């Protein structure tokens, strides 16, 4: 759901650039003190996987397609700020090398698809997960929250894009002509997002739970059944 150039006016894309730049600075500040050397291969492979998965558009409705976003996957695997930075890299490479998403709109695209769909959804996810984990196992709470918030991440990112297009008012359309077509398709795309994110997190959780940032269960619980605890 990359915004191309020509849909946003200066005040909107300028503001979005400012907010995204601030978020990048904050993320770098957070990450430089918490980054674990051993996590670097996971950082790299998550970014590469997200880039490659975003290439695969699947048809959604007549004449429209959607693709994986990966912001929640990045944040659940790497944490809300390292995950944010990974998304920033993916979006910047797409913009600068492939003209996927406009150059002026890059700030807005980072704001929507990395900050809102990534960090913000991660914090809502974390609150929900810890609430659920009082009643259910850590693994169940985590995967349930991952499924819901990865769906929501796509819907919220699309909503943010629709708001930006709407306040830019370049297309001169009422909100009723902007919001439904953009948000409607993304409610369907979000289902694909939820399936892919949940499956990937579940697989890594099974193999190496210590590599999933959001997991607070027993340290190397791959072999240890949680029910035993």
């Amino acid at each position, binding site marked *: 759901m990359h915004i191309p150039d020509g849909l946003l006016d200066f005040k909107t894309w300028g503001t979005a650039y400012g907010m995204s730049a601030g978020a990048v600075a904050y993320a770098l500040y957070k990450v430089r003190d918490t980054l674990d050397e051993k996590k670097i291969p996971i950082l790299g492979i*998550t970014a590469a996987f997200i880039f490659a998965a975003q*290439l695969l558009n699947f048809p959604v409705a007549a004449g*429209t397609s959607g693709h994986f976003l990966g912001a929640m996957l990045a944040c659940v695997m790497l944490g809300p700020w390292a995950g944010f930075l990974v998304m920033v890299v993916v979006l910047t490479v797409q913009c600068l090398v492939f003209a996927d998403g406009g150059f002026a709109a890059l700030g807005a695209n980072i704001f929507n698809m990395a900050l809102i769909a990534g960090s913000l959804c991660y914090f809502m996810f974390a609150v929900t997960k810890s609430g659920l984990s009082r009643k259910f196992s850590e693994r169940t709470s985590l995967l349930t929250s991952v499924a819901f918030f990865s769906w929501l991440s796509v819907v919220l990112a699309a909503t943010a894009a629709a708001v930006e297009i709407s306040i830019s008012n370049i*297309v001169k359309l009422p909100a009723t002509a902007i919001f439904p077509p*953009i948000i409607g398709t993304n409610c369907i795309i979000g289902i694909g997002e939820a399936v892919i994110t949940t499956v990937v997190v579940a697989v890594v959780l099974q193999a190496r739970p210590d590599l999933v940032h959001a997991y607070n269960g027993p340290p190397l619980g791959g072999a240890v059944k949680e029910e035993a605890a």
Partner: protein
Amino acid sequence: MKRLFTRRKAGLWLLVGLGLAITVLLVFAAPWASKSPDSIEKFARDKGISGSSAAPVKDYKVPGVNSESASTRVAGIIGVAATLLAVLAISFVALRLGKRKKSVDLPPGEGSANEA
């Protein structure tokens, strides 16, 4: 401690290898992806806006590669490599700047990754 391959890290490298394999498979499958525009792209096109900015590999078509599917795959490889390099470069710079500096002894060869 600084060794890249230890028994404890075997699982990590297996997972990284698996991730890389899946990534390569996804890139290989990219030509079969839907060619339809995505939600916002379609919205823009319907309104007559075609955001045309210049880029080296515009719209995932590598100049000079005639076959459309080969072009998409090469573009995918370029993108994966660029993403990987950028993330590694940022990580090494962040490690260098961080408070955990003392626990990090980069092997001599990897210092140059900072300039990448």
